[in-house]
C-alpha cells in the first residue's frame, strides 16, 4: 500500500513551507532517510527525508509550491499502488507544476508579522506536569528545555539542568533539534524507533546554500541564492526601495556602562550572573525606552497602516557563516538584564551553529545591529521590514571634553538610528535616541526603575 510523505513542520509557528527543489523524481526508488526535496521557510532552508521505503509514485506539489505543513507532499509505495486516497484536499491528480492549491492554509501567516503579544504557545512541547510546574515557579521558558524523558518529553531534570546552567542557556539548540525531530526529519534510533537523547545531540547537517551547475574553467561562478541569502537579498532590496528611511547619529558617555560591566566581570560570576556585555545593556535600555516610542516599536502593514506592539520583541543582528541572521528576544521589555543577556547569548550561539528554529527568528518589532566590535564609528543600518526602526551600535572612541576649563577624555559610544519616516518624524526619532543616550549614561538609574 502506498504511503504519504508529509511536509514537515519546521517550527511551532510554521504553517507552510515552499518546496525549493525536488531531488527525486517519480519512478525513483527511494529508501527511508533519502533526501526527497529541499524546502524553506522565509527564515531557513531544510531538507526533507523520506519516511518511507519504495518507489516515488507521485509528487503532489512541484518546485516553488507553497505547501501547508503536515500535508501529503508525495506518495511512496510499490509500483501500481493506488495513490488517489493520499492526494491532499481530494485532488484529482497531481498539479505538479502548477501553483499549489493552498486552500485552507493561511499562507499569508508566513509573511505577515505574527501576533506580538506572547511568544508562540508551547502547546506542542511534551512536558510532564511536574516539570511544567517547576518551570513556571522558576520563570523558565520551557521551549528551551532539552527533553530527556521518554518520547521527547521534558521532565523535571531538564528544567533543573536549565536552572543549573542559568535559565534558557545552551539548551536551546537541543530544543530546536527536538522540534525538528518531532516534525519527522529525524529518525529515532532508540527502542521502538523512538527519538532518544542521542538523536537529539547528534550534529546537524550543515544546511547552506546549494550550488547549482558550475561551469568549470570559467573565471567566475554563478550561484543562485537560496535560503537565507535569498531572504536577505529580497528583504534589503525591499527595504531600501520601498521605505523612506534616514539615519541620525548620536554618541553618549559610556563611562557608567563600562564601569558597571567591569564590576560585573569582577563580581558577577560569584553571584551566578552571566557575562553581561555592553551590547546586552544597550538591548536592555532599548527595550525600556522603546516603550515610550510606539512608532518605533511597530510594523508598517501597508503604506497607510501601522501596527503598534504592546511588547518589545527585540531582533538582534548576528553575523554568521551563512549570512546575517536576526533572532528575536521575545518580550524583552518584560525581561531582566540577566534574562536578556542569557537569551541573547543563547540565540547568538544558535545562530552561529545554525540551530535556530524559524520561530526564534520571527516576530521582531525592532532591531539592534552592533558593528562596534569591528571598529565601525558610524553607519547606516537598513530597516528590516516591516519594522519601523533599527539601531546601529558603534565602537567606543575616546573624545575630549572640557570640564572646568580642563580638557579631559571620556569614552564615547556611537549609536546610529535609522527610522521609517512614514512612521515617525525626525524630531521624535531624535528624542528617542537622545533619551536612550541619557539612559545609558545613567544606566544604574535605569536599572533601578
Amino acid at each position, binding site marked *: 500500500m502506498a504511503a504519504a510523505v508529509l511536509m514537515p513542520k519546521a517550527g511551532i509557528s510554521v504553517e507552510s513551507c515552499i518546496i525549493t527543489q525536488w531531488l527525486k523524481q517519480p519512478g525513483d526508488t527511494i529508501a527511508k532517510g533519502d533526501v526527497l526535496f529541499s524546502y524553506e521557510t522565509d527564515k531557513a532552508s531544510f531538507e526533507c527525508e523520506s519516511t518511507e521505503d519504495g518507489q516515488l509514485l507521485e509528487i503532489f506539489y512541484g518546485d516553488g509550491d507553497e505547501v501547508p505543513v503536515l500535508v501529503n507532499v508525495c506518495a511512496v509505495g510499490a509500483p501500481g499502488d493506488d495513490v488517489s486516497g493520499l492526494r491532499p484536499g481530494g485532488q484529482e491528480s497531481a498539479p505538479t507544476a502548477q501553483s499549489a492549491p493552498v486552500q485552507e492554509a493561511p499562507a499569508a501567516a508566513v509573511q505577515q508579522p505574527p501576533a506580538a503579544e506572547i511568544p508562540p504557545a508551547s502547546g506542542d512541547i511534551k512536558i510532564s*506536569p*511536574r516539570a511544567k510546574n517547576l518551570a513556571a515557579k522558576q520563570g523558565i521558558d520551557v521551549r528551551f528545555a532539552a527533553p530527556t*524523558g*521518554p518520547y521527547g518529553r521534558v521532565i*523535571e531534570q531538564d528544567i533543573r539542568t536549565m536552572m543549573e546552567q542559568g535559565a534558557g542557556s545552551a539548551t536551546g539548540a537541543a530544543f530546536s533539534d527536538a522540534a525538528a525531530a518531532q516534525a519527522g526529519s529525524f529518525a529515532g534510533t532508540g527502542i521502538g524507533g523512538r527519538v532518544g537523547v542521542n538523536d537529539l545531540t547528534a550534529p546537524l547537517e550543515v544546511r547552506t546554500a546549494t550550488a547549482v551547475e558550475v561551469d568549470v574553467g570559467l573565471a567566475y561562478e554563478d550561484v543562485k541564492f537560496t535560503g537565507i541569502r535569498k531572504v536577505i537579498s529580497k528583504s534589503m532590496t525591499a527595504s531600501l526601495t520601498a521605505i523612506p528611511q534616514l539615519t541620525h547619529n548620536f554618541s553618549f558617555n559610556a563611562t557608567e556602562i563600562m564601569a558597571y560591566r567591569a564590576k560585573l566581570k569582577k563580581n558577577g560570576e560569584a553571584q551566578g550572573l552571566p557575562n553581561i556585555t555592553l551590547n546586552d545593556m544597550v538591548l536592555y535600555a532599548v527595550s525600556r525606552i522603546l516603550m515610550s516610542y510606539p512608532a518605533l516599536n511597530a510594523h508598517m502593514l501597508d503604506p497607510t497602516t501601522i501596527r503598534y506592539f504592546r511588547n518589545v520583541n527585540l531582533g538582534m543582528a548576528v553575523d554568521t557563516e551563512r549570512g546575517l541572521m536576526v533572532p528575536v528576544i521575545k518580550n524583552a521589555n518584560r525581561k531582566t538584564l540577566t534574562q536578556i543577556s542569557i537569551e541573547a547569548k543563547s540565540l547568538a550561539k544558535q545562530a552561529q551553529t545554525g540551530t535556530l528554529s524559524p520561530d526564534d527568528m520571527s516576530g521582531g518589532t525592532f532591531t539592534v545591529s552592533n558593528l562596534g566590535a569591528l571598529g565601525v564609528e558610524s553607519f547606516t543600518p537598513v530597516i528590516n521590514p516591516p519594522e519601523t526602526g533599527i539601531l546601529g551600535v558603534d565602537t567606543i572612541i575616546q573624545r575630549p571634553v572640557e570640564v572646568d576649563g580642563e580638557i579631559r577624555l571620556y569614552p564615547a559610544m556611537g549609536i546610529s538610528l535609522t527610522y521609517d519616516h512614514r512612521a515617525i518624524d525626525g524630531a521624535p526619532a531624535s528624542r528617542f535616541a537622545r533619551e536612550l543616550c541619557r539612559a545609558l549614561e545613567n544606566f544604574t538609574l535605569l536599572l533601578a526603575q
Partner: protein
Amino acid sequence: MPKSQFIDPAEVRKAGKIKFTDIPVNAYKKTVKDEVKTFGKENLVRIYRDMAYLREFETMVNLIKTQGSYNGLEHTYPGPAHLSQGQEAAAVGQAYHLGREDFTFGSHRSHGEILAKALSCIEKLPDEELMTIMKEFLGGKTLKVVESAFKADSVKELAINFIIYGTVAEIFARETGFHLGLGGSMHAFFLPFGIYPNNAIVGGSAPTALGAALYKKCNGKDGIVIANAGDGSLGCGPVWESLNFSAMDQFRQLWEEGRRGGLPILFHFNNNGYGMGGQTRGETMGYDLLARIGAGISPTQMHAERVDGYNPLAVIDAYSRKKPLLESGEGPVLLDVVTYRYSGHSTSDASAYREKEEMDAWMAVDPLVTYRQELVKAGVAKDGDIEKIWDHVRETITRVTKLAADEKVSPYISFQSNPRIVEDLMFSNEKVASFGTEKPSVLAPKEECSRVKQIAGKERFAYKDGKPVSKIKAFNYRDALFEPIIDKYYEDSSLISYGEDVREWGGAFAVYRGLSEVIPYSRLFNSPISEAAIVGSAVGYGMAGGRVIVELMYADFMGRAGDEIFNQLAKWQAMSAGILKMPVVLRVSVGSKYGAQHSQDWVALPAHIPGLKVCFPATPYEAKGLMTTALNGTDPVVFFESQRLYDIAEEFHEGGVPKDAYELEFGDVSVIREGGDITILTIGATLYKAVKAADILKEKYGLSAEIINLHSLVPLKYEKILASVKKTGRVVLASDACARGSFLNDIARNITELAFDDLDAPPVVVGAQNWITPPFEFDAEFFPQESWILDAIHEKILPLKGHVSTVNNYLPVEQIRRAEAGV
C-alpha cells in the same frame, strides 16, 4: 487423615452390600380430630390464624406489586417479590415447635417462614420479654411507629403488628424496617426471635446455616438450626457440600468428649416441584423423590422423610420427632416437605410451564381450605370464628401496610441528610478481644506446644551481628502467622479454624503445625474439600456470633467459593444495617511452582467487592501485625499469603518481629526504604524484586528509590503514598498479579488524579503477563522481575543510560497490540 483411624485393606476390599432402611413418605395420617387432645383447640385454631396471616401477607405484596393497590391503598413497590402462597402449612408447621434459641435461615421465598417463626415466638415468649425485645430493637424506632398508629389489646397483638410492620417496612425499603430497608424482601430477618437471614442466592442458606450449627455445637449453645431451601437448590454445589459437611464422621468419631455428636442442623426442603420454571422431579433432577438423597449422604440417611407440607399437622409431627434427634446429637436431618406455590417464581413469571388443571388440583387441597374444613368438622372452630380471624388478619395487614407505605411515618433512609449512611455500615470496625463467653477449651498450656518452644529459640530478625541468620533458626513468615493465631486461641473461646488439611498437617504450608497438640478437634479440624461450604459456613459462624479463621489453601480456589466470598461474606454487615458482625478471617495463599491453576495473585477480586477487607503482608513483621489486627476485629478479612514468603525472615523492621502482640493498622503502608528519585509501590512477594531493582538503580544509575509496600489494600490510606510521589515525581507499581485489572491500576489512577501536578511521568504498573501461568521453569517469563521494573522506568519514566529492556511490555505500540489481541 488422623493416625488413629486405620484404613484396613482387608476391610475396605471385603465383599458385601450397602443396606438402606426405608425412607418414610407422607407417613403422618392423623386428622385434626385425632390431635385435639394433643394440641388443644386454641393451638389448632392458632395454626390456622398463622397460615391466614402468611397468606394475606403474600396476597398483599402480590397486589401491591402487580396492581399497585391493596384494600384501597395505592402504593408502588419496585423490588423483588418471590411469594409463597400455597406454602403456608410448611412454614407454620416448621415454626410450631421452634423457640427463639432455634435459628432459622431462609430461602429467597421466605416471607412466610419469617412470619411463621415470629408468630410462634410471640406465642411462646412472656409479655415482658416481648416488650423488652421490641423496645430495644433499633432503639424502639420500629415499635414507636406501630404504637403511634394502633392501640393493641395485648402485648402479643402489639408484637404481631410490630413483626408484620417491620417486615413490610423492610420490604418497602424504609428506615423503620428491620434493617433500615437495606436488606429488603430477600434479605429480611429478625435476630431476637432467632430468625436469621433469608438469601437471594438459591441454596445460599445451606452453608450459612451449617456455620450457625457449628457455632451452636462448638460453643455449647442450645437450640437447633433450620436451613430452608427449595427443591431447586439441589442443583447447587454449595448445598451438596453443606449436606456432606454437616454429616462428617469426625463429629461422632473424632471430636472430643463434650463436643462429640452430630450437628444440630435440619435441612428443610420446601419441595414445591419447581426450581424457577424447571420441574425438579421429571425434568431437572434424577432423585425421583427428594427424600431419597438423605440415603446418599450418611449411614443415618440423614433421618430423611418426605412430609406432607399441605398438612400443617404432618409438618409439626415431623419436627416434634426430629428436634429431639438433633438435640441429642443425632443430626443432621433432611426433610422433603412437599408443597406447592400458586404464584410464579416471581411476579414476572407467567407460569408457562404448568397447566391450570395442576394449579386447580392443588388449590382444591389448599390447607387454608382443607384444614379449615377439618377444624369445623372436628368442632374446634365454627365458620364464623374463622371468618373473624380473616377479618382480623386483613384489618391488621391493611393497617401495617398503610403505615409502612406512608413516607411520613415510615421514611426512607436519607442520603441527603447522611450521604455516608451506607458507607458507614460497610464495616463495623470494632475491636472485640473475645466473642466467646467460656474459658477457651485447650488440651494443654500454650507453653507445652512444641512449636511455641521451637519459636522461642528462634532469631526474630534476618541478620545477627551483620550476618544472615540460617533459615532454620530464623523466625519466619509462617511463625509470624502462627503466633497471633495461637494467642487468640487462648483468648477467645469462640475461635475455631478449619479448612483442608489444617489439623495434623498444619495446613498445606504448615502455618498451624503443632497447633493440634494443644487445640482440641472441635476448634481445629479438617474440612472436606468444599471451598463453598468452608467459606459459607464461616459466614454463618460469624453471623451467629463466633470468630473463625478458614483457609482455602491456594488463592486460586476462591473461584470455588465465589458466591460465599463475594455475595455472603462481603454483604451481610451492610445488608443487616450493622446488626450482624462478620469476624471471619479467610486465609488464602498465592501459589508458586504449581502452574496455571495454583499460582495466581487474585487480590483484585476481593478488593473489587465492597464489604471485604483485604490484606497481603510481605514480611513477617507485617504478617504478625495484620493477623493480630484481623483477629481482634469484627470485619471479614481476606488474608492473602504467599508461598514465596513462608520461609523468609524479617529483613526490614528494625529489631525484628516483636514477641509481644502488636497491631498493624489496616490501610497503613510500610515504607521499606527511603529514597528521593523514584517511588516503587509493591504488593506481595514482588517487594523483594523491587528491593533488587532499587539496588541496581542505585549502583548503576545513581538513583535512590523509595520502596513502599502496600500490606493492606482495603482499606488503604493514601497520605504516605502521595507524599512519596510528591517527593519523587515518579512511581512504578509492581505485583505478581496479571497486569490487566490489577488492583495496582486502581492505585495508579488515584495517584494520577491526586498528584497529577507533581508527576514527572505517568505511574506505570508492572504486573505479570496476561497469560496462564506457565510451568515454574518459565517463572521469569511470566512474573515481574527486577529487570522489568527497570524496563518500565526506562521506557516510560526516565530513560536509563545504557539500559537495554528485557521485555517489551512497556512499549506503547506493544501495549496497544496486546490489548487488541486480548492478552
